[in-house]
C-alpha cells in the first residue's frame, strides 16, 4: 500500500523548517546558500507530491522550472560569493552590512 501524500507533505514541511532555521542561524554564506537549496527541495517535494495526489502533471512542470531557476541562482550567487571572498577570505554574512541605514 502506498504512503499517503500527507506524510510526504509533512516531511517536506520539516525539511523546509530545518532549511529556514539553518539560513537564519549560520553565518557562513556558503552554508546559508545550501540551506536555501534545502528549502527549494522541500518545495519541490511538495509540488511532486501534489502532482501525484491530484493526478496533475503541472506540479512536475513547475518543479522543472524551479530546478532551472535554482541552477541559475546558484551560479550567480556563487559568483557573488567568489567576489566577496576575494576581498576577505574569512568573510561571513555579518561582516557585510553596507545597507546599514
Amino acid at each position, binding site marked *: 500500500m502506498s504512503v499517503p501524500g500527507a506524510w510526504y507533505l509533512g516531511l517536506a*514541511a520539516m525539511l523546509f*523548517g530545518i532549511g529556514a532555521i539553518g539560513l537564519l542561524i549560520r553565518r557562513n554564506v556558503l552554508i546559508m546558500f545550501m540551506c536555501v537549496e*534545502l528549502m527549494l527541495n522541500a518545495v519541490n517535494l511538495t509540488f511532486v507530491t501534489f502532482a501525484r495526489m491530484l493526478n496533475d502533471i*503541472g506540479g512536475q512542470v513547475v518543479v522543472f522550472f524551479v530546478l532551472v531557476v535554482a541552477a541559475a541562482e546558484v551560479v550567480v550567487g556563487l*559568483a*557573488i560569493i567568489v567576489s566577496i571572498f576575494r576581498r576577505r577570505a574569512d568573510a561571513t554574512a555579518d561582516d557585510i552590512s553596507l545597507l546599514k541605514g
Partner: protein
Amino acid sequence: MDWVVFVAAGIAVLAGALGVVLATHPVHSALMLVMTLFGVAVLFVAQQAHFLAAVQIIVYAGAIVVLFLFVIMLLGVDRSENVRAEPLPFQRPIAYVAGAGVVAAVFLLARTTWVSGAQSAAGPADGPGSNIEKLADSLFTRYLLAFEMTSVLLVIAVVGAVVLARHSPTGGVRDSEAS
C-alpha cells in the same frame, strides 16, 4: 515496501538537512547536502516523477554540489566556523521560534484548509505514455514560451556570473561589485 522506502528516504533527507545546518565545516555541509538531495530524488521516484528524479541527481548532486565544493576548495575557505557563537542579539531564539512556527502553522493550517483540487492546464499525470513523454508534451506545447525564457535566464545568469567573478583589468574587483 513503499513505507520502507519512504521511511528510509525520509530519514536520509532529515539527517542530511540537519547535517547541513549543524556541520561546522562547509565541506561536511556540502556532503550532507548530497545525502538530502539523494533522499529527495528517491522520494520523487516513489511518486512516479522519474524524470525529475534523474534531473535532481544530475543537476543538483552532480552539478550544483560540485560547484559548491569547487568554490570551497578554490578559495580555500574550508575553515570551520564556531557554530555556538552568535554575534547578533536575539537572532537565534527568534530564528528557532520562526522556523518552528512555520512548520507548526503549516500543520495547523492543513487541518482546516486543503487544496481545491482544480486541474491545471498541463493535463493528468497518469494514463498512457511515460512520465517523460507527458512532461515533455506539456513543456514543449503549453509552456514553450516559459521554457524558452528559462534558456534566456540561464544565459543571463552565466554572463552575470562571468562579469561578477572576473578579475577586473586593474587588478582587484571594483568596490561596487565586491561588497
